[in-house]
């Protein structure tokens, strides 16, 4: 006899199945899965990113897929290692920005009045400066290190989440289900946490993907101008800067491949955001 339970998919299996189906059906998810896999597993499979491996400035070949740099380091290995660093910094910075900006925006929208106005003015004063210039200024003042970079990138992105969440929460504040939750005697914190924030999470997560891309771009830009990750650590922006002078002499591969890695990751994250927004 076949039991009903045996013929039906368990919730966990069906959820996993859906994730797999969506991943393979949607190019953005597939591409993101590949980048994430490269960042997670890649560093264990490639050569030492700091090791001197022989010929310097060797062009791409079967042995060195992306060629070697002026110190004879394998650019492919460095690009793969840098993927982990860039993605981590991007993810942590964007997550920190969400953790701070989302509740503040929701609280401002829910409470209104002076606290809302104050939060808006503070976020506007941050947004009055171009993001990159603001990040440059703060890093220049505090000194570059990975934790400082993460903090600065998160800080310049907090106003984005604050305003985004605020504008998404504002129409919900007077909605019937929030009113019903208040009538049921639920506390302000519980209403925000359980009833309002889950309703705006989709918008925030779509922005999160774009924000990780921004964070990677800011990190690369800071490294490019020498205020980000210091060499010899493998980081895409720093690698582009490292190879820029060699472009004039025909050694294009030193900058090109890390540049392409930035492009591919940023594009993927932007497409992913579109996919999340359109509910694939």
């Amino acid at each position: 006899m076949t039991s009903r339970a045996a013929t039906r998919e368990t919730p966990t299996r069906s959820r996993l199945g859906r994730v797999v189906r969506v991943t393979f059906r949607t190019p953005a998810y597939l591409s993101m899965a590949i980048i994430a896999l490269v960042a997670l597993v890649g560093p264990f499979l490639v050569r030492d990113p700091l090791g001197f491996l022989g010929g310097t400035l060797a062009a791409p070949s079967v042995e060195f897929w992306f060629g070697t740099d002026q110190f004879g380091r394998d650019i492919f290995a460095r690009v793969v290692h840098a993927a982990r660093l860039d993605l981590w910094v991007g993810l942590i910075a964007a997550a920190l920005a969400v953790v701070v900006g989302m509740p503040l925006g929701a609280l401002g929208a829910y409470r209104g009045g002076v606290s809302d106005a104050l939060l808006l003015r503070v976020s506007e004063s941050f947004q009055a400066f171009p993001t990159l210039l603001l990040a440059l200024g703060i890093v220049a003042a505090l000194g570059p290190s990975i934790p400082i970079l993460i903090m600065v990138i998160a800080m310049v992105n907090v106003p984005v989440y604050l305003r985004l969440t605020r504008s998404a929460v504002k129409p919900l504040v007077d909605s019937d289900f929030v009113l019903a939750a208040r009538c049921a005697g639920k506390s302000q914190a519980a209403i925000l946490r359980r009833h309002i924030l889950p309703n705006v999470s989709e918008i925030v997560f779509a922005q999160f993907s774009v924000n990780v891309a921004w964070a990677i771009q800011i990190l690369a830009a800071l490294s490019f101008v020498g205020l980000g990750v210091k060499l010899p650590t493998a980081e895409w922006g720093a690698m582009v800067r490292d190879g820029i002078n060699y472009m004039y002499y025909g050694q294009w591969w030193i900058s090109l491949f890390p540049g392409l890695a930035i492009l591919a990751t940023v594009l993927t994250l932007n497409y992913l955001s579109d996919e999340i927004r359109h509910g694939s």
Partner: protein
Amino acid sequence: MTTPLLDVRNLTVGFSGTGGGMASLPLQGVDLEVPRATRMSLVGESGSGKSLTAAAVIGMLPKGAEIMSGSIRLDGEELVGVGERRLRELRGRRIAIMFQNPRASLNPVLTVGGQIAEVIRVHTGAGRRESRQRAVDLLDQMGIPDARRRAGDYVHQYSGGMAQRAALAMALSCRPDLLIADEPTTGLDATLQQQVLELVVEQVSNQGASLLLITHDIAVARRTCERTTVLYAGRVMESGPTGSVTGAPANPYTDALLRAFATVEDGRMYAIPGTVPTLVGPLAECPFTNRCPRVGSECHDELPPLRVVGDRKVACVKV
């Protein structure tokens, strides 16, 4: 004489204007008594102040509105001026409310059962498993088929009638003393209206709770409630046993309201001529004078007080 469960006296609510003064006074001296284990309907046309009265009772007036004077007592406890913390304890636990649109009043991203269980947890301190089980039992009691499975569904998976049953389950989850039902059947078709009303009456009676049914449909009040209060322009016009109020209305407004719902005159539905007055300041005369078929010069002299006339209270100088 026993204290009524809900006793609203001389309740005046105003909306503040831009200059700091009052822009309007939509409730002007409302008196309302809901005895224990009694079904009371609050009837009136749009803009008469029914929902605002309910909002004042539950301490959830809209932005800009405030209680100018009067008292609201629940089981003898004064609610006007009481802190938000105490009001939160009372909401859901002692006073519950169900709204007109059940689909909108249930959170679309939480399961129906989860939402009911959450209310139980907040007010009774029950554990996750216990509150969940009680939520399923309540849904079952409300006639939701396959309640255990449906408790895990979202509100968009419910039909209108089922959603209203779920909203009723949530409202009654902590066995409140008073259920305020704000036009609970307006969005439902005629057959579902009757079913939901019967369910509300049955469940409220089973729990020994009182019901304050807000409706613009006097026929619904007649079918459902033992007592009826008629509200017009923020004033109580008539209040008493439903049979008397709707059977032999003493106030011309009650009479007009009944005719508007029940009569076809000269091949046309009867409509009360004119509109509800805008309540920008304190009333100095009967608010129904501009529409009343029985209006006389004495109606303009003063604001008629609510007087006991036989088995009811009426606010009309002509009675």
